């Protein structure tokens, strides 16, 4: 009996450790507001949301399985909510029944398990009733499968049989056990046996006499140690039975827990959907298998975390990259570079959680993993002497990389001077890209960006203009890196005149647009450069 709402062939393991680097991903992509909305104050929902967002799926079939189930949940939230509440409350009640159980004695375990199983049976009956009422509503394999399981595995006759068995487990006529003598002649392999009925026509007296003939003894009433041992011995024999029942309780509890967590996943997604839908378009992504596609195409991509923090729609961006294995974002401070990088990362994670993405459209390949390397506040404060630490972090990150993984790097190698930082950066980024790792990079380092551009002419380069620039605030446009974002104002300040006109080598910024005025921002493609 399986739930299998989140994976087609296995349960969601909410205790599974999150992949290496997840703390950095949460902090760097500013995921806490998203996780908070999803969790809605429930600890379990928080775990489920973290697990789903930070353990990216890589199998497109599993992603599609979830996308379909998510569609069912969005269309019919009531039964999902009902199953969630029933399984949560039912499991909690059964757990309470066993909570006082500190003993390892088999007879106590047996007793508590009988009561817990009784409670669980009534929960199972209620779950079945919900399935019966909503059986025709579901379209997805996930929810159809669960409905079938509840209707067919838990038919009335079976539930009645379970009730009967619980009654006989009280052992009204003493315990009969078989045993063998182990290597030290201590009894082993104790197994509880079903006492055969006495031969026809025998009286109880004759039956007892037969037993005495067979060899019996009586433990003296004042022999406390003897009685205590006998109790333990009996308990050892009951272990098998107690274990069978206790594990059955565990199994049903596990089923209810799986149902609770797996419905929590979709209900958490529903929370997020409802919180985000006022701020911008949400779309199911068009995905491609790992390594199958280099193009990344997004329209009206926005950062959901920023939207939740500002309670307003952030400026959207369109990104069209023919070869997104290397995507380099350069340009002015406060020009929206980090926000775009976060939006890219968050959309990738949401896609690989099997959910909607914050964009009007989103096409990209699945990454084998997502890691972040963002400049930290502490790096900024003590720029010198921190390079060692940053390189150490990078080393760890590379140890956990896989080909076709995605690295989001924000201002790396800033903890030293530009020359050294660029030299190291060129080696590191180049080696990653050449090893098949996808890198989305925000950098100030002109030498780094321009050396990457000459090595990887087909890579995508985006540039942020100054807030008062022609493209408008926070809109990024395709463009090659420029020597410095401050050259012009500095030159002006020092020399009191404008520098000679200089043409950006690639595309020109075009019409500015904001969401409220024109939600279908025109796509600005990176000019495809000839291959090397």
């Amino acid at each position, binding site marked *: 009996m399986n739930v299998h709402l989140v994976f087609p062939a296995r*349960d969601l393991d909410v205790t599974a450790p999150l992949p290496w680097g997840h703390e950095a991903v949460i902090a760097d992509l500013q995921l806490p507001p998203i996780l908070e909305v999803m969790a809605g104050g429930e600890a379990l929902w928080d775990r489920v949301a973290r697990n789903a967002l930070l353990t990216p799926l890589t199998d497109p079939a599993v992603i599609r399985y979830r996308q379909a189930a998510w569609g069912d949940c969005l269309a019919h939230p009531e039964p999902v909510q009902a199953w969630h509440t029933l399984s949560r409350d039912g499991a909690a009640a059964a757990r309470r029944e066993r909570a006082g159980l500190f003993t390892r004695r088999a007879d106590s375990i047996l007793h508590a398990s009988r009561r817990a199983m009784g409670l669980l049976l009534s929960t199972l009956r209620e779950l079945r009733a919900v399935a019966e009422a909503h059986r025709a509503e579901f379209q997805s394999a996930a929810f159809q499968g669960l409905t079938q399981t509840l209707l067919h595995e838990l038919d009335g006759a079976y539930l009645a049989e379970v009730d009967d068995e619980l009654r006989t487990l009280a052992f009204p006529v003493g315990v009969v056990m078989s*045993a063998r003598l182990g290597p030290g002649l201590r009894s082993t392999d104790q197994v*509880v046996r079903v006492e055969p009925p006495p031969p026809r026509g025998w009286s109880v007296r004759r039956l007892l006499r037969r037993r005495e003939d*067979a*060899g019996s003894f009586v433990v003296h009433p004042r022999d406390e140690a003897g009685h205590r041992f006998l109790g333990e011995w009996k308990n050892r024999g009951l272990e098998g039975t107690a274990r069978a029942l206790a594990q059955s309780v565990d199994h049903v509890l596990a089923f209810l827990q799986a149902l609770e967590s797996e419905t929590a996943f979709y209900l958490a997604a529903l929370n997020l959907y409802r919180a985000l839908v006022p701020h911008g378009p949400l779309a199911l992504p068009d995905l491609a298998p790992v390594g199958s596609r280099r193009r990344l195409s997004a329209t009206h991509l926005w950062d959901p975390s920023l939207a939740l923090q500002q309670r307003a729609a952030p400026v959207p961006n369109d990104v069209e990259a023919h070869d997104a294995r290397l995507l380099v974002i350069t340009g002015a401070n406060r020009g929206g570079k980090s926000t775009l990088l976060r939006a890219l990362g968050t959309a990738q994670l949401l896609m690989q959680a099997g959910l909607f993405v914050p964009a009007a459209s989103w096409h990209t390949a699945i990454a084998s993993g997502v890691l972040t390397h963002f400049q930290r506040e502490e790096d900024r404060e003590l720029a010198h002497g921190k390079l060692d630490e940053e390189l150490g972090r990078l080393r760890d990150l590379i140890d956990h990389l896989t*080909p076709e993984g995605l690295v989001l790097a924000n201002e790396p190698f800033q903890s030293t001077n530009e020359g050294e930082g660029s030299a190291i950066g060129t080696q590191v980024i180049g080696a990653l890209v050449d090893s098949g790792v996808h890198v989305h990079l925000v950098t100030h380092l002109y030498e780094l960006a321009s050396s990457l551009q000459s090595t990887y002419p087909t890579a995508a380069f985006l540039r942020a203009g100054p807030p008062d620039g022609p493209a408008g605030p926070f809109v990024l446009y395709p463009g090659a890196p420029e020597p410095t974002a401050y050259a012009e104002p500095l030159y002006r300040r020092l020399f009191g005149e404008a520098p000679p006109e200089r043409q950006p080598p690639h595309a020109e910024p075009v019409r500015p647009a904001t969401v409220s005025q024109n939600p279908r921002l025109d796509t600005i493609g990176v000019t495809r450069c000839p291959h090397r």
Partner: protein
Amino acid sequence: MSLLYPIEASTRSEPVQAQEPAHFRDVLLDRVVGDVTAGRDEYHLQPLFYEPPTSVAATAYRQDVFRDLETPGICDALTHFGEGMRDVRQCGDLSLRLRNPRQQDRWFLEGVARYGQTIERLADQLMAAAPASTGLQATTDYLQDYRASERFRAMTEAATALIGELAAVQHVVHIQGSRVVVRHYQGEADYGARVADTFAKFRQGPVAPYPFREAPSGDLNHIEARIVDRVAQLEPDLFQRLETFHRDYGDYLPETVARLDRESQWYLACHEYVERWRAARLPVCYPTVAAEPGPVVIRGAFHPALMDVMPPGHIVCNDFLLMGPERILVVSGPNQGGKTTYARLFAVVHYLAQLGCPVPAEHASVSRFDQIFTHFEREEESGHPESKLEAELRRVRDILATATEDSLVIINEAFSATTVRDGRELGHRVLERLTVLGARTVYVTFLEELSRLSDATVSVVALMASKASGTRAFRLVRQPGDGQAYAASLAARHGLSYDQIRAQLGGMPS
């Protein structure tokens, strides 16, 4: 027969010396031996390290066994043998310790049965692995004869049969209040299985078994004893034969097998220790040990005790070279540069080589030694400078009086308590005496000029890496070397050069 000594030498087999040699502490061989023998206290292996064989033939005999151990089949065979014998000993201990005679008989029987299996398995596995060493070939031959012997056959067959019969006895106990009925099992159905069946539908995957308390081992209590007595009444003949078996085979373990058990543990202990070097990608080799004095060529050696105190990647390997007239390595250089470790290493490589063990080096050609003499400054001796100097001089005098041309002498920072002038003067004289003696010597001093004394002395200097990179080198060379640049090696030190990353992530097509 012995795994440690060839047949001709095995008349004086067991080392008589039970005392740790004096130099062990100075060169940290005590730590090495402690690490090697850790977890094997019951075999009392330490004395086997205290007296290296004097003949080069015995050294080679052991090296051959170590080479055999690199064949997994042979290593596994000896490991299983050791585990099996440990098991057998535990059964034997119980048969002596417990009070109930039926229990004594049963544990004795258990021990014999496990012993039989252990011997058969070792014999089979050694036959299959076909060892190349004389030592293990002799062992294989012995085991074939032994297991074919009449007494061994009869004993193990009887044991197996008895255990089978005892295991087949299944009885039923019915507990009703304080009455306990014991009778034969008559095929009553398993109740737990029926319960499990009913609830099978809820099984979702493996669930951890409930951790019930284990039944205590040891003596039976009075109720258990009564149950056993009832079962014995049900099966009188079987229990009679159990008693007879114990009487008939009282003392069954031959001395040769007991010895094989201990000696194979010595090899396994050393082998496992050496495997740790290999796993850490540290060098290992089989040294050549010449019978007559000759050149010393040791390349890429490290002190194995360092593995306790630093990650393997930080361990630096060093060379030793004494050619022609050279006898004395005079080691100088900055503090904390690894001079003491270097001096210790010289003795450790020689000692392990003569013991017949693989040594921690890429290459080692050495000659036999008769004794090792060490003089190390000790913390507890840091008393009055004058008395300290006197104690040092006495010690060095004793060394010079006892050491021979075949000895190793390690002197570490002698005469540092006195003035530089005195130290230089004393050092000169001692080195002159050592030169005349011709013993292989490592002399650690802060006075580098002592190395220019004669043809017999060679200067070795501890290097420091450049201050910029900040790491200590622990590399010692016959002449000073250069430091390293900081900036150029920065990325490389973190494994972040282009080539390092590419090599690590593999060649995905780009």
